């Protein structure tokens, strides 16, 4: 399996646009971020690989002049492998940065999931299970352990320990919540909240007009017809915003509902029935 992919490059090298490839490889050797990193690195070994790659690149160019496609492919492949070796020698920093980034992202997520676990366990009056609490202390311990590795710069260990902590927490969360259906009922604390919801609902319908139905609106006849309810909708929306400005949310909600109804009318005019 591992050797399979190489067949593509050797067997089909002529098909793969070798001429173009010389240009690409040249960029990689001379101008890429990696090439610059090698030059900056003062790593004599990496520099030696870069020189070697340049040498093979010259061979490839020479072979191209002679029209020997097979030799071009061979030399080019050597150039690639050489520059890859050089690149690997200076890749340490990007690998480290990446591992740190992954670790920090995961840790942040884990904290939020741990908080959710704690909350759900407390809410769970029926079957209090002491094992659930243990999962939390276990997770916390593991997170501290991971952080200790991270601080020592042992990033692979840190990542593994953190991942294990995540997996056991996930298992426990799945056990607590599997098979459940929770309803986010539409309930507004204040009239202002409901007004904000209506505002969003109005935006949504406006957006359907401006995106999905844009083409329909450009039709002169239909466009004119649709304009009538849409103008009314705009007017009502402005009115609602003024009502909300003077904190008359009750009225603002009613006005917005009316505005949205007009937009829905326009959508239906375009031949599409959507539930209101």
């Amino acid at each position, binding site marked *: 399996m591992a050797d399979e992919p190489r067949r*593509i490059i050797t067997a*089909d090298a002529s*098909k*793969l*646009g070798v001429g*173009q490839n010389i240009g690409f490889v040249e960029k990689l050797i001379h101008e890429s971020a990696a090439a610059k990193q090698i030059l900056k690195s003062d790593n004599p070994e990496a520099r030696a690989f870069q020189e070697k790659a340049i040498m093979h690149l010259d061979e490839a160019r020479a072979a191209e002049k002679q029209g020997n496609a097979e030799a071009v492919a061979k030399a080019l492949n050597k150039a690639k492998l050489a520059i890859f070796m050089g690149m690997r020698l200076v890749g340490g920093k990007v690998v480290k940065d990446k591992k740190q980034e992954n670790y920090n*992202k*995961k840790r*942040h*997520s*884990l904290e*939020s*999931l741990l*908080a*959710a676990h704690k*909350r759900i366990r407390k809410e769970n009056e029926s079957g209090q299970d002491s094992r659930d609490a243990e999962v939390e202390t276990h997770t916390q311990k593991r997170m501290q352990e991971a952080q200790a590795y991270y601080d020592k710069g042992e990033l692979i260990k840190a990542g593994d320990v953190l991942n294990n902590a*995540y997996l056991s927490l*996930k*298992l426990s*969360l*799945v056990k607590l*919540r*599997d*098979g*459940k*259906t*929770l*309803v*986010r*009922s*539409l309930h507004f604390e204040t009239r202002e909240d409901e007004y904000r*919801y*209506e505002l*969003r*609902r109005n*935006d*949504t319908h*406006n*957006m359907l007009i401006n*995106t*999905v139905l844009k083409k329909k609106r450009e039709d002169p006849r239909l466009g004119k017809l649709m304009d009538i309810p849409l103008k009314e909708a705009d007017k009502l929306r402005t009115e609602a915003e003024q009502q909300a400005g003077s904190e008359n949310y009750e009225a603002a909600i009613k006005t917005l509902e009316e505005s949205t109804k007009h937009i829905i009318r326009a959508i239906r005019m375009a031949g599409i029935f*959507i*539930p*209101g």
Partner: protein
Amino acid sequence: MNKRQITITSLTLFAVALTALMGVGVVNAAGNPNPFNRLFVPPKERDTALKNDKIHDPSVPGLKLLQQPKEAFAPLPGSIGGNYINWVQALNKGLIKPHFDHLDASKEALSMDLVIVMEVKGSMPNVAFPHKEHTVWLECTNCHDSIFKPLKGANPMSMAEIMLGQKCGVCHGSVAFPVTECRRCHTESKKTAKK
């Protein structure tokens, strides 16, 4: 298969049948300067060839080594938007077997069957967010809490935001089925949802 899946499946099949019928119309019209639908291209008739897709460089020799979407999609169940593939069914039927871990092909997803129903005002059907269909593809950390706080109701959202690529729209609109497939999210008619 539960009732919902049956409903959706039958609807999707119906859509595909309809689309196929329209496709036949276009095929028959080939060579006719006045086909019934001139600019309207049904999904099955779309030109998906890589060399014509306006992003691939047709002069790249390696292009012929790449797979054509049409070939790859042929055995998969259809849908009405996005890739025109119902990825949920493709996975459930075992037609694709994506590895859950790129280093260990034997690892399997640990999925969670938690549904969050989000009530919507008016007669628009409610949204049911199924964790199960997501956790077979994704880790909890993909969503929590960079996209959603793991707390019911803590993430107010609107369709407008979703259509602009926020919240559910992070994926539904660029990789997972797009927002135009309203019915796949707004699954709960009001009659049965009220409790």
